[in-house]
């Protein structure tokens, strides 16, 4: 029973991280119809930057709860850095390509992936970076006869907060209305006086911020290593394909499905856990090409 509870908690932790990544990917696709192959690398970049900042701060910070809160507040800096990178990428690399076919979007973001992977190697070296100090400081809580890291629950809370925040942002603010209008009809939005280019930069930066935040929250639990982004991108694809490209609810449900299937898979059928996920994605695409929550 205890094992079961722990596995469920693990699934929620994993779902929270996957949601952060997939929501960004989905948002970018929903607004600008670009499938960003470099999205996983942006997630990895967020992980690296956060780990690096926390790593340099941890030695100097005050001990105790006050210091811990300070370090936790440093984590989102990685996400902000990634958002800044995104705000640079969109006008320079993506804007010239909107009129061209999707093949070129995939290619240019694949080039970007190669560039980002090596830039991370150049900046942060080959040794894995971790912000494990945070996880150690937060301690653990008892679950039945076992203990569970408190930090994982914090990540779940961040995931829930991000989901609610993003939903409120898109469906309850003026900017959200503009974003949805642009996503539905770019030319009409432009004709109504919306500065579409600016909306695109903002949407892309928000998507990148989500990816970076995913990396930032994962790095105290799991070290940032080279190739992290390449691996995670495919899982994020599985999430958005199941949920529906461009749908926020879809990203949430997809993340939960993938997280639970994967946790169960590692427990019961470890050899084919990944294959099962890809097959689920393929099956969903076949039956419902637009995913569970996508619109045509």
């Amino acid at each position, binding site marked *: 029973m205890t094992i079961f509870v722990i596995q469920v908690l693990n699934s929620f932790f994993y779902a929270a991280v996957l949601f952060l990544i997939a929501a960004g990917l989905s948002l970018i696709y929903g607004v600008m119809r670009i*499938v960003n*192959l470099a999205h996983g690398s942006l997630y990895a970049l967020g992980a690296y930057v956060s780990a690096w900042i926390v790593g340099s701060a941890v030695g100097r910070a005050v001990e105790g709860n006050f210091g811990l809160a300070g370090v936790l507040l440093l984590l989102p800096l990685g996400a902000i850095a990634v958002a800044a990178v995104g705000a640079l990428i969109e006008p320079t*690399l993506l804007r*010239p*390509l909107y009129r*061209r076919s*999707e*093949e*070129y979007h*995939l*290619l*240019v973001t*694949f*080039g*970007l*992936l*190669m*560039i*980002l*992977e*090596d*830039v991370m*190697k*150049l900046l942060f070296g080959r040794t894995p970076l971790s912000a494990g100090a945070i996880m150690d400081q937060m301690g653990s809580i008892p679950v039945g006869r076992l203990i569970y890291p408190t930090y994982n629950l914090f990540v779940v809370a961040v995931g829930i907060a991000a989901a609610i925040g993003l939903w409120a942002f898109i469906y309850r603010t003026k900017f959200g209305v503009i974003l949805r209008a642009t996503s539905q009809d770019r030319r009409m939005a432009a004709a109504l006086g919306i500065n579409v280019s600016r909306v695109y930069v903002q949407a892309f930066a928000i998507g990148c911020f989500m990816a970076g935040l995913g990396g930032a929250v994962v790095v105290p639990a799991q070290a940032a290593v080279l190739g992290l982004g*390449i691996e995670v991108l*495919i899982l994020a*694809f*599985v999430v958005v*394909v199941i949920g529906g*490209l461009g749908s926020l609810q879809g990203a949430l449900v997809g993340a939960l499905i993938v997280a639970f299937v994967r946790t169960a898979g590692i427990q019961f059928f*470890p*050899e*084919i*856990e*990944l*294959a099962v996920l*890809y*097959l689920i*994605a*393929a099956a969903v*695409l*076949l039956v419902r*090409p637009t995913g569970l929550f996508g619109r045509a």
Partner: protein
Amino acid sequence: MTMVMAVPAGTSIWRIIIGSAIVLVILAILPRLVDPYQTVLLTYGLIMAIAALGFNLLLGYTGLLSFGHSAYFGAGAYLVAFIMRDFGAHSMELCIVGGMLGTLIIAAIFGFVCVRHTRIFFGILTLALSQVLWSLAFKFFWVTGGTDGIRVPYANLTLLGGLVDFKGAGSFQRFIYAYYYYVLALFAVSTIIIWVIAHSPFGKALQAIRDNETRARFVGISVRRYRWIAFMISGTFTGLAGILWVPLNGLTTPDILYWPFSGEIVFMTVLGGFRSFTGPIVGAMAFNYLKTYAIASTEYWQLLLGVVLVILVMALPVGIVGTTTRLAAKLGRSTK
């Protein structure tokens, strides 16, 4: 889109045959002039050219961008490894037949699923299915060796039904040269087959589907079936490349099934230019040299290749061949 494939108006078939014959003669003489290392590089280039040609039947001629062609390349390579290890076969011809049949079956299954979609969904679907194979190769380590892969020693191999074997002293040197001509011959045959397919009524139908699916359907073309057949041919030739690649590399690992490798196949095709028949060949050779020298000269070769790719997409979307053709056309006009 009013792109003219391969045969621009006024180019006679004889010019193409003479041109190809000259290129083939040069390729046949080259190993006598360059050192063995260059010969190996050329062999790799020719192998990748087969992969890219097969791939381009889908991208350039049918208008479908597959981001999962690593599946067929890797399937070919792993099938050779299985045939040699588990069936104790030595004949390369047997490996080729077995490997191509196996790849054809996989491409038929994956293609059957994938051609239900086009554009971005087609890309994602091919990618997801290719990763099924990757995860299997990665996880079933007692069958596939996991990340260690399977060794495929060239010494166990015989060419031409046992006529040429590689035992005894100096065998590696002999293998390099013999294998080069073996690959060259298969490259020539594959190129001719794909050229004929691309210029046959079937190939024209594929191009019609690419340019206007609705009209193609009105004309009575069974769009989905044509796409499926194109997918199978494409996958099988990319599989042949994987089959030829593995004895030269001596080892097959899950890396060639991983999706960034699919990206490389797309990269080389676009580098050469996917709007022309010869583009993928030129692109594969150029990419092969580019990657080899980038890896040799810097630790950050991916960065270099990434920058090349981004510049390519931004500035030269028609690739090397397309750009050269345009320049030549411009020069021709200005001298008149």
